[in-house]
């Protein structure tokens, strides 16, 4: 019996040690998002929205848990936007919690200006929000796209607390989750949905202009709009190009895996990436595959272009910089990273998974990291050298 008691104590002690080892905050359920101004970065990551000085990566303020008891203890995800004096961010999905609010936070103070809650069934905001400069477009996991007008605030009582909420300009209901931000161009919104459809709406009224329903799987990206066309990939391994005015299918190209990376169009070429790690370059007018490059894990983040260089961040923890002026693919279209003329000597290993689109600011590439202590890392665009990391290690 004594021996057995010893085993139980040892087991309990091991469990305690193991749980302590896992320390720190739990991994997020949603993808982080970042935007930058000339002087600051705004990062929605896990349990807080941070305003960070770009000069020295010091935290200017933090909205969320741990800073102020009056602030919400929730998870944040997706890309925030700046509108007027507010930073607007969506509540995200954590490992065991979902927040169903959109928050307007004062750019100056980091305090809550307003909050919005949709239907009783409203859920998470996975990819953040978009804006046309007047309205905020907030796609929710409940299938509703909420258009908010933060210029008109009214008072509400939520959980016994008096708060401000923006006017709901209109609501559009899809038939399944909305897990991507809409693209906004020329007074129109292009909203992809997990119900396998892409919707074009009038941005001012929410009126449905057309629906594309030829995809056979969910669409989880923010489409790229260029030259009167709408470009997007879907989970049916297919990349689509539609006429932006009518929604008519112009071309489609079948690729190898789910496409969950926002596409980007540059000088007649569409770049996208799939969940098996391939980066694809297609001709924007015909869909002809030009080349593809294989990373070692899923690419969910949108590739970004600066000058002649394409930057790709992957779940494999590496950042790739490809010189687009000198790409010579093999007969099957494949290019090996070791063979391309690289902007940098090698891929840069940040040691953490990356799922979210990096942003360019001056000579730097700011990369949000999915998990780990470092949430935001800047790299030198010229040589890939690591520069600043947020938060600063004490």
């Amino acid at each position: 019996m004594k021996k057995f008691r010893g085993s139980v104590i040892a087991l309990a002690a091991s469990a305690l040690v193991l749980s302590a080892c896992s320390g720190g905050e739990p991994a997020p359920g949603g993808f982080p998002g970042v935007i930058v101004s000339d002087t600051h970065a705004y990062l929605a990551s896990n349990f807080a929205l941070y305003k960070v000085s770009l000069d020295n990566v010091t935290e200017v303020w933090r909205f969320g848990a741990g800073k102020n008891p009056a602030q919400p203890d929730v998870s944040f995800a997706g890309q925030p936007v700046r509108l007027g004096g507010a930073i607007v961010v969506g509540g995200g999905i954590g490992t065991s919690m979902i927040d169903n609010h959109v928050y307007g936070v004062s750019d100056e103070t980091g305090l809550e200006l307003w909050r919005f809650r949709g239907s009783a069934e409203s859920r998470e905001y996975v990819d953040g929000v978009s804006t046309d400069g007047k309205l905020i477009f907030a796609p929710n996991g409940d299938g509703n796209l909420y258009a908010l007008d933060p210029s008109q605030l009214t008072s509400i009582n939520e959980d016994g607390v008096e708060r401000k909420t923006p006017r709901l300009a209109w609501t559009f209901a899809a038939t399944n989750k909305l897990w991507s931000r809409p693209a906004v161009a020329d007074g129109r919104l292009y909203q992809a949905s997990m119900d396998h459809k892409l919707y074009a709406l009038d941005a001012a009224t929410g009126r449905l202009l057309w629906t594309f329903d030829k995809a056979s799987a969910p669409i989880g990206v923010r489409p790229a709009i260029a030259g009167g066309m709408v470009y997007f990939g879907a989970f049916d391994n297919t990349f689509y190009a539609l006429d932006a005015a009518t929604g008519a299918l112009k071309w489609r190209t079948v690729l190898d895996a789910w496409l969950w990376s926002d596409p980007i169009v540059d000088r007649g070429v569409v770049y996208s990436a799939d969940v098996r790690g391939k980066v694809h370059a297609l001709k924007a007018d015909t869909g002809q595959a030009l080349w593809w490059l294989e990373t070692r894990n899923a690419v969910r983040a949108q590739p970004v272009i600066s000058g002649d260089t394409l930057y790709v961040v992957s779940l494999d923890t590496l950042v790739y910089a490809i010189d687009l002026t000198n790409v010579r693919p093999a007969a099957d279209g494949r290019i090996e990273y070791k063979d391309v003329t690289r902007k940098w000597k090698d891929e840069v290993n940040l040691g953490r998974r990356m799922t979210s689109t990096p942003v360019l600011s001056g000579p730097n590439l700011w990369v949000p990291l999915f998990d780990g202590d470092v949430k935001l890392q800047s790299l030198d665009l010229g040589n890939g050298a690591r520069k600043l990391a947020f938060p600063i290690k004490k």
Partner: protein
Amino acid sequence: MGFDLFDFFINNPLTNALLLLYGLLGRNFVLAILVLTVIIKLITLPLTFRQQVSSMKMAAMQPKIKELQEKYKSEPQKLMEEQRKLGFSPLSGCLPLLIQFPVLIGLYNAITRSLAVTPMSLLDLGKHVYSFLPNISSLMPIDSKFLIWDLGQPDTAYLIPFLPIGIIPILVILTTYLSNRLMTPPSTDPQSAQMNQTMQWMMPIMFGMFMFTAPVGLGFYWLVSNLMGVGQYYLLKPRIDHAKRQYALPNAGGTAAVSNSVVKSKSAATPAPPAPLPKSKGRGAPSIELSKPKDKDKNKK
């Protein structure tokens, strides 16, 4: 992409099988879990049976093994030899379990992946669906609604209003207890018996605690799995009872039958020798020929 053996051989086939069943069974995820669990339990039935019988055999040998350990305390080589002669193989009970374990982990992974509650888990799922099964992607996203539950969320269907204890975690606790009680081989060793008894209530509580925060879909899996385990027990009961008689083990399932007084009285006296073991078939441990009536006859003689 990096190559992961466990993904390739276990996780991916099970994930895709689960999704395939989901599609075939009218997009009912609970039904898909049920059917896949039944299929896996049926496939692993012979292994389960072997493991049960082997555990009982090892339990029956314990007094004799202790005797040998005492006798050959200073001669480990000789001890091993004697144990081998007796057919004692501590791993023989674990081996079938070890083979089943990856499958159970794979099934667990398949369910959590397929439910894809978070964006990260959906991304993970996307990497592992077979592209040669194009219809699989069209099943996305999985309909996580089942009766009053959202399979991707913790159970909020509380038994008592305002008391946050869901129905499914409670059922998981009860069925885990029942399944453990039936499936735990009885033990003649007091320490093992005590440990088994503790595990019988500790395990259900641990699983139950986990289920309070885990997605309900997993709860359904544990529920189905436990009920299948109980069903399996009754299916194998005639053979197991036969084995118990053969190895002179307490008759009731689990260790509950091994009352402390029995254990004490047994341990105080010289342990009774186990019933004659089946004859060895060749070099290895004695084979178990439970289905053959002649063994029974031999014991009677």
